[in-house]
């Protein structure tokens, strides 16, 4: 690529028109080490016409926290593994590890897994690693499950339970799941295709980050008080770093930077399914409508991973829907960062620039109690226009 063209079209190049250029005296006085300043950032082409998909799903929030107990249906032992709220992608390996250990206590040769979302497929692979022959019974293959309509980022602490209903040991259980998941994700980092990837993420704000947020709008229903997990995994979480004005490449007054881990659905899904089939795993397409049906399966040890479907399949009234929508813009592999501005989050994934309106802080969480799974085009365009306006503030390219 022409280096002059690249520079002209890079954010660093554009900012260079109005701010200190690298190597000048002003840049050398930056509070953050010069070597640690943001690299050249290429712009996100945030325009509604570039939306090529809108995905909508229901997070499986469970007021009592993830269901991890054992239940007996006829002569079958059912090990529950569902209700991970917005943390399924993050907690999947750790939760699978705990539940497979319970399942293996019977020394089964064969194990059934119900559901093929991220919790189901990781449970199935973990059971294979433990030596069992595994059959997944599911109504959808992985790429059509609700899991693949989620955000797919490392968010292990995403609303695990209501404070009033959480079991007393939830914090310890959660920390164990988080740490085991983290260890199990390590082999996928750096793998060809980046199934799991780290990327810098910028938080941008028009007001100081420590300023009091505006009061939330009135809520028609009681605002949920979530179980407080505390700072248990700070040692594996990158901190936020404040960018001083002289190294802030964005046309926004306040900026912070951290580094996030996220999942690329296509590659990660492919790797997981390939692993499952390579180990002799089988998939049976079917739906279940009542727990009693599980007693008729040939496998007598069953790991139950239905996600939000547990609300009706298991009549689990602790399941509360929490709608989430992501909008997907045509991939830009040259964009190697994410950002959050005015309650809209953007991440550059291998299969697209993902945006999500995460809603205002405080008040009723956006989508809480909402089980509408129909994509909302207007919501998608609103989110994209926030980013479009942000990037429009950069000076025009003086070609």
């Amino acid at each position, binding site marked *: 690529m022409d280096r002059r063209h690249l520079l002209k079209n890079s954010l660093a190049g554009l900012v260079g028109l109005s701010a200190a250029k690298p190597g000048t005296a002003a840049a050398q006085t930056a509070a953050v080490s010069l070597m640690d300043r943001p690299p050249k950032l290429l712009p996100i082409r945030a325009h509604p016409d570039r939306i090529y998909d809108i*995905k*909508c*799903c229901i997070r499986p929030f469970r007021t009592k926290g993830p269901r991890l107990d054992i239940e007996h249906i006829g002569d079958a032992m059912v090990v529950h593994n569902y209700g991970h709220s917005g943390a399924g992608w993050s907690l999947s390996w750790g939760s699978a590890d705990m539940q497979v250990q319970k399942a293996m206590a019977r020394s089964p040769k064969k194990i059934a897994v119900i559901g093929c979302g991220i919790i189901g497929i990781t449970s199935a692979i973990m059971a294979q690693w433990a030596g069992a022959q595994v059959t997944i019974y599911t*109504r959808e293959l992985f790429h*059509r499950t609700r899991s693949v*309509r989620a955000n797919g980022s490392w968010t292990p602490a995403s609303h695990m339970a209501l404070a009033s209903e959480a079991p007393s040991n939830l914090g310890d259980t959660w920390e164990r799941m988080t740490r085991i998941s983290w260890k199990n994700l390590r082999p996928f980092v750096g793998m060809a295709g980046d199934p799991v990837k780290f990327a810098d993420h910028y938080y941008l704000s028009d007001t100081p980050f420590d300023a009091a947020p505006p009061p939330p709008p009135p809520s028609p229903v009681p605002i949920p008080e979530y179980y407080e997990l505390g700072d248990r995994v700070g040692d594996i979480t990158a901190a936020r770093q404040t960018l001083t004005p002289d190294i802030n490449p964005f046309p926004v007054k306040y900026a912070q930077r951290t580094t996030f881990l996220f999942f690329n659905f296509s590659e990660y899904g492919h790797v997981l399914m390939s692993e499952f089939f390579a180990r002799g795993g089988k998939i049976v*397409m*079917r*739906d279940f*409508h*009542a727990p009693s*049906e599980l007693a008729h399966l040939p496998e007598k040890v069953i790991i139950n991973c239905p996600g939000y479907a547990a*609300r*009706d399949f298991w009549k689990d009234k602790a399941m509360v829907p929490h709608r989430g929508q992501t909008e997907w813009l045509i991939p830009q592999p040259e964009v190697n960062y994410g950002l959050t501005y005015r309650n809209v989050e953007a991440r550059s994934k291998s299969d697209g620039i993902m945006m999500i309106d995460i809603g205002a802080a405080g008040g009723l969480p956006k989508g809480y109690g*909402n*089980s*509408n*799974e*129909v994509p909302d085009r207007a919501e998608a365009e609103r989110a994209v226009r926030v980013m479009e306006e942000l990037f429009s503030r950069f000076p025009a390219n003086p070609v």
Partner: protein
Amino acid sequence: MRPNNILVASALLLVLGTAVAQARISIWDGVYTEAQAEHGRTLYMQNCGRCHGADLSGTFEIPPLIGRFMPYWSGSTLDALFDYVSTAMPLDHPGALGPAANADIVAFILKSNDIPSGAKELSASQMKTINFDPAKPGSKRAQK
């Protein structure tokens, strides 16, 4: 037990068994009426069609109510489907419709899957007695 008593008990069991067998019917026995399915169509379009589509074919995310719908729901009695429709649907307002409306919608779904209509309306109270057979019992397809 004396031989005579055994004979009486066996006969009684046979009669009871036959009665149960007769009470159980199949979705293929004409369990809804054309008028009911037509009313169900209207209700479906008002409450279900936005997600499942006017032709019941669903979307990439929303399950279809034809095609694979049959193997996914057959094998139990019709109350499994009726209960699900009654308690889980419409997805954004679960349980919003009453039993009669849900029975009409189930009738429309049956008709859409080429299950024949009959002379008697489908009611909520009889769902448990209707087998959701994947094919007409006794037919060549069922025997396969």
